[in-house]
């Protein structure tokens, strides 16, 4: 069989290209070839765009699903991070802490995973306090903390986890006491950077609430 194929192979290999292809094939083709680099960049751009769209869609879906997450859930860090981003973008330092307080009250009412909810609340409390001071929205933030303290007390009355809620109330009040006005905070920052040498600067002493 192979020897019979060999005979046909000779015929096959004897095929000659037409004179057009020999003399003008490359000339004609070279005129049709575009700029390879240009094509590569186009391909790169299109692929980048498709990739970015897929990432955005997937990211959006994950963030959307994470909004239903509770403290301790796998997607809860995503929810927390997305809230911090929203807080920064909207310049609303109270946004994240309001959501953590809601989570805490819900968990306390249902009696599940309160410890984790407290931990998450404490984390965001410190961060929100610093953000409020940096953005000069201490009054609004203090008001939010006062409202939350009241909500925690109400939750305590409704068979909530009394001990854990009391711990959170104490912490919230402590932070509320620490929050300073814009001027005081700036003074503190100046003092830390060594620009303000005045030893009489009101660091941590003078609170807006005083």
């Amino acid at each position, binding site marked *: 069989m192979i020897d019979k*194929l*060999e*005979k*046909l192979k000779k015929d*096959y290999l004897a*095929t000659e290209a*037409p004179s057009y292809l020999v003399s003008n*094939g490359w000339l004609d083709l*070279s005129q049709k070839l575009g700029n390879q680099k240009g094509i590569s960049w186009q391909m790169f751009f299109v692929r980048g765009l498709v990739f970015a769209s897929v990432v955005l869609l997937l990211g959006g879906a994950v963030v959307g699903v994470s909004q239903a997450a509770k403290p301790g859930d796998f997607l809860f860090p995503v929810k927390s991070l997305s809230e911090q981003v929203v807080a920064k973008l909207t310049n609303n330092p109270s946004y994240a802490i309001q959501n953590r307080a809601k989570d805490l009250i819900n968990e306390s009412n249902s009696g599940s995973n309160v410890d984790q909810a407290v931990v998450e609340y404490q984390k965001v409390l410190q961060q929100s306090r610093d953000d409020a001071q940096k953005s000069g929205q201490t009054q609004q933030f203090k008001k939010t903390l006062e409202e939350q303290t009241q909500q925690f007390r109400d939750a305590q009355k409704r068979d909530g986890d009394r001990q854990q809620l009391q711990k959170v109330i104490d912490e919230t009040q402590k932070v509320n006491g620490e929050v300073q006005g814009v001027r005081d905070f700036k003074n503190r920052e100046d003092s830390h950077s060594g620009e303000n040498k005045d030893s009489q600067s009101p660091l941590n002493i003078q609170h807006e609430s005083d």
Partner: protein
Amino acid sequence: MDLPDLIAQSKNGDKDAFGKLYSLYYLKIYRYCQFNLRDKVLAQDIVQETFLRAWRSIGKYSDRRGGTFQAFLFRIARNLIIDNSRKKKESKLENFEHIEVNLDFEGRMDAEGDQKKMRAALAKLNELERQIIILRYFEDLPFEEVSKVVKVKEGALRVRVHRILEKLKGILEEQND
């Protein structure tokens, strides 16, 4: 400049390097198309289209993934031949089969013409089987490269070649009866 350099330069948009690749392979691609299509003008057009597509997609070519450069070209050419057959229901490929079979059927074929008998036998194979024989036995491509062109795993391809040869033998015996 050796082949990997020519490919690398072509990937960077060097038309002269691609021109050298064209010079190296256009005849191989032409005779492959001509044997399949039995139409010089169409084969010529498909050769040009093969290289045009190769130029456009050379950025995606990788010898690790797609086999050798000639396997890359044969794959493009084969796809174009198949596309051509699909577009034109009365494709040259089918005509080739019918013409050869009819010649044999009508008894007009030279009894001593082994080549014609073999052509007729090849025409009775299906498209994939025919491409495997052409690439393996006429173009002397190693199994690894043929597998890249026809997208059949190398192990399965070896078994398939054995069966195709048996089938060809059977067809030739039928012709002699």
